[in-house]
């Protein structure tokens, strides 16, 4: 039997059906834990109570959605460990992204958690200026930003009275695309450990940093890393759902590659027959 050359629309229809089926009927695929995700989890677990963790970077929300899986689980872990966080947005959509993750994780008192705004968590306003903003913030937080996102002066917030400059930051979590800025101005220049909940497409670009700063930089890999973190914290979410549908999709994808090659070899035989 001869396999015909498939049109793009046919392929898209198959892919669409696969997604609809996998989104409505989860197969509950199990997955393995990776060493680095466990290392990150243990690092956060080992931070002393009351440590200050900064979350921030330059954001494109749609890409960062991938990191939200790990971040939401990590926020729950940090709430459980009584850590305190400051969100530092360096992209125009970062404020929205931070709010999305905080809301979804339910760590705030208003959503059933234990965190109180100003005491356990502060949201800084958007900080423009790229590299200069990171450098200014590390140098002196109160000079770099005067108020929080709602316009309250930083000095009126109990948490910010204790957090003055880079020496008061115990770790930096980057759930955003531009991790290079964090490595340059936070990890390398100020010796603050950096954790990157990497988007899968960015993982390969930034993985050399993990080798260049061993014991200072850790990265999880995409939704798979998110699913692993969710499993560690015991809160299945977007990461688990995505990995579930990806299990089928990866096979379909490879199937199409194989089909393409079979079609090519078939046609090549045909071409040879015509020549003979």
């Amino acid at each position, binding site marked *: 039997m001869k396999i015909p050359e498939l049109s*793009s629309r046919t392929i898209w229809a198959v892919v669409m059906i696969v997604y609809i089926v996998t989104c409505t009927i989860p197969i509950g695929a199990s997955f393995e834990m990776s060493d680095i995700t466990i290392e990150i989890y243990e690092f956060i677990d080992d931070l002393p109570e009351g440590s200050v963790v900064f979350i921030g970077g330059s954001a494109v929300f749609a890409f960062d959605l991938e990191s939200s899986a790990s971040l939401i689980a990590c926020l729950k872990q940090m709430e459980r460990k009584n850590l305190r966080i400051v969100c530092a947005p360096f992209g125009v959509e970062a404020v929205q992204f931070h709010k999305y993750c905080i809301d979804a994780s339910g760590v705030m008192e208003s959503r059933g958690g234990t965190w109180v705004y100003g005491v356990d968590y502060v949201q800084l306003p958007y900080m423009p200026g790229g590299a200069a903003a990171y450098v200014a913030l590390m140098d002196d937080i109160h000079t770099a930003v005067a108020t929080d996102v709602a316009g309250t002066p930083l000095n009126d917030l109990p948490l910010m009275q204790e957090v003055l400059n880079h020496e008061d930051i115990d770790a930096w979590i980057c759930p955003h695309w531009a991790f290079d800025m964090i490595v340059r101005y936070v990890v390398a220049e100020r010796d603050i450990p950096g954790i990157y909940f990497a988007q899968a497409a960015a993982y*390969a670009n930034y993985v050399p940093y993990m080798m260049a700063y061993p014991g200072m930089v850790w990265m999880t890999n995409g939704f798979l890393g998110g699913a692993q973190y969710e499993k560690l914290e015991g809160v299945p979410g977007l990461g688990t759902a995505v990995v579930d549908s990806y299990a089928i999709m990866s096979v379909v994808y490879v199937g199409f590659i194989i089909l393409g090659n079979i079609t090519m070899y078939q046609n090549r035989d045909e071409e040879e027959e015509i020549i003979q």
Partner: protein
Amino acid sequence: MLTSAFTEQIFVSGKVFELITAMIVAILTYVAYNYGKQGRTWEIRQLDALEAIYDGIGRAAETGRPILMLPGISNLGNPQTLAGLTLFGEISQRSAEIGVDAIASASNTAVITATEAIVRGAYTAAGKPEMYEPGKYVRWFGADQFAYAVGAAGQIMATKPSVILYAGYFLFDVIVSGDTGSRVGAVQIGGTLGSMEMISMMCDHIFIGEELYAASAVITKDEMAIATVAGQDWIKLLAAGLMVLGALFSMAGSDAILNLIGV
């Protein structure tokens, strides 16, 4: 030691090697610039993707289908866009000489204007100014990244080019036009420092990393551009030398080079 106490008062400790590196890079850059100014040039090694472009122009002439050139989604301030436009100037002129249509579209309006000027210049240089018509070769589909990609995809389906060149700054938008290009069976050649993995998936021939800049230096034959490439080569060679030396030391059990770098 007197000198070390003295340097610690002036230089931040641990940053001295960084400063020395900066100095060396500065000196090499300046030397290369001066050589370029004096008109000295270097031969640049063969670039496979550039050869593929020249083959592609021939192929386009045989099939009678046009060449499509996409200079990406960035503006004229981006060196990648400029390198792309340089490539386009060359293709445009060669195509004009042998009567192949070279068409283009971009997302940035300033790039569109520059491209139009390049096409006009190419036809004049090829001795066929009468063949040039404003608006015939260059199209604009909108400033948004995906509007551009969809527009380019429509253009690919309509004109069925034999060769598509992606040279400039691209992100994931290239997936849409790249897939469409593969549908019409075009030979795709690309280079970017943006989403390089996507370009490499879609294209038959790729400019890896800075090959894009080297290609534009080869085409312009501009002494300054070639000198810049050469200057960077010296620095890369030094970096490679330091790595090899350090690796040998390190394998022999000595941390001398690591301590020198101090990272």
